């Protein structure tokens, strides 16, 4: 895929492993255009979240390059990386709300840390963000008092608190009831369009993500194995894509974890 100035994220031939000879990601290349909502899908443990950590500069790639807004993330010094992170927002899988702060203070956290906004302005901004996710009335609650869906909405409001250019979502649909699923999906799409941001969703929730994203990358065993629009993915006949999108039990991904022959394991003879 060719790089264009419209791409906010450009990842080229990127490999990563905590130990160099045991790679988790292998030769990944992908482009995420500005303004789009893109899903990075794949089974559990295929390396999706690692891609987010690489984009956020929390990990360094073993090989390859990763550019955000034209800047090589891993060539930045600490100050440059922190400056870049101020333009990013991230929703963690279980919210990662600060448990010692109220909902209000969680949203206000980044504003207080990075801006000199007066107290009144911070108050108004926080209430606007909370209103957008329907939780203005929960401003004074502690995170422990929130349901899973509410916590995810607060985390979303916190992720977009400073109107970032890029918002990353790590499994935003995990563990939510059907109503909360729909709410979070709509909020992701709406906030992306309202802010003019770019969003990258790491998920294995097929139906919910295909309903809101512009483009999909499908990962398996540390590689990008397919890419396309939601319609292209739904209509694909490629065996792995078909199995993943339709949730088929058998296919390229076998039901059984590799093991010795069943009969031999039970002592019933040799396979």
């Amino acid at each position, binding site marked *: 895929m060719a790089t264009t100035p419209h791409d906010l994220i450009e990842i080229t031939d990127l490999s990563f492993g905590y130990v160099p000879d045991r790679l988790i990601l292998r030769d990944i290349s992908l482009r995420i255009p500005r303004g789009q909502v893109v899903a990075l899908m794949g089974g559990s443990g295929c390396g999706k979240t690692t891609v987010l950590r690489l984009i*956020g500069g*929390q990990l360094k790639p073993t090989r390859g390059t990763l550019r955000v807004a034209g800047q090589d993330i891993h060539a930045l010094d600490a100050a440059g990386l*922190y*400056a870049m*992170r*101020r333009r*990013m927002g*991230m929703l*963690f*899988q*279980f919210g*990662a*709300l*600060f*448990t010692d702060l109220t909902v209000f203070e969680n949203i206000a*956290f*980044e504003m207080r*840390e*990075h801006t000199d906004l007066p107290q009144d302005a911070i108050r108004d901004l926080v209430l606007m963000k909370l209103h957008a996710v329907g939780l203005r009335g929960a401003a004074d609650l502690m995170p422990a008092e929130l349901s899973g869906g509410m916590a995810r909405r607060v985390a979303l409001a916190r992720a977009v608190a400073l109107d970032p250019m890029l918002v990353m979502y790590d499994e935003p649909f995990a563990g939510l009831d059907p109503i909360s699923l729909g709410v979070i999906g709509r909020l992701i799409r709406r906030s992306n369009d309202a802010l003019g941001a770019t969003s990258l969703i790491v998920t294995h929730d097929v139906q919910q993500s295909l309903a809101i994203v512009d483009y999909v990358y499908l990962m398996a065993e540390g590689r990008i194995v397919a890419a396309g629009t939601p319609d292209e993915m739904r209509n694909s006949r490629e065996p792995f894509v078909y199995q993943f999108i339709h949730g088929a039990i058998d296919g390229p991904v076998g039901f059984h974890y590799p093991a010795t022959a069943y009969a031999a394991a039970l002592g019933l003879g040799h396979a």
Partner: protein
Amino acid sequence: MRELFGGSIAAVSAFVLGAVTRIGAASLFCLRVLARSMTSFARPRLLVREVYFAGALSLVIIMVSGLFVGMVLGMQGYETLQTYGSEEKLGVLVALSLVRELGPVVAALLFASRAGSAITAEIGLMKATEQLAAMEMMAVDPVARVVAPRFWAGVVSMPLLAALFSALGIVGAYLVGVRLLGVDSGAFWSQMQAAVDFKQDILNGVLKSFMFGFGIAAVATFEGYAAPPTAEGVSRATTRTVVNSSLLVLALDLVLTGFMLQLWSE
């Protein structure tokens, strides 16, 4: 036999190597905390909040323990001193024991158990629930925002708690020695006043407890920050904080006492 011997050497070597590596990592972490400490001083509200959690919430256990240790010391001291007809020296015995040794050491051991373990558990759980990672992604350094205020809160709280422990211990000894066992009140206080030296006894006690606070805070914050982000990891880190910081306090006490006695004799 040779294999057994070789295996033992290998196991001891691995243990020593692991311990030295961990001490090195803890020292580097400590330097990082010191380098990132300006936030704590520039934003005193962060520090005050942590002093409340580490120091103020430890007051009950420290004060009650100090009172009881003082009462027991008064009882035991009276029993021994009356053998020599020197029970009026009880104030001196109690004050010197508490101010020089028992106050800083016992208060530090209690502080390690009460506040050190809480600091480790809190930082470890923040790591396990990705709160520290979230902070990093918000371009906020968790060492400056979370660790440094807790570290300095430990350093600041420890001497104050040790002083309170000693003070309550003396009150406890007074209650038992003077009020219960009949030691002369004037002798109890005046001999104590004459024998306790501000520089050699009180100041050295404060210096000791300051060093203990530094050690406990360093161990507690490091163990929390380096804890594996799992329930088991945090649990083990909390236990390590109590064990390691208690041992560190005892070792530091031996070294500091040696230094101080040497300085006094010169």
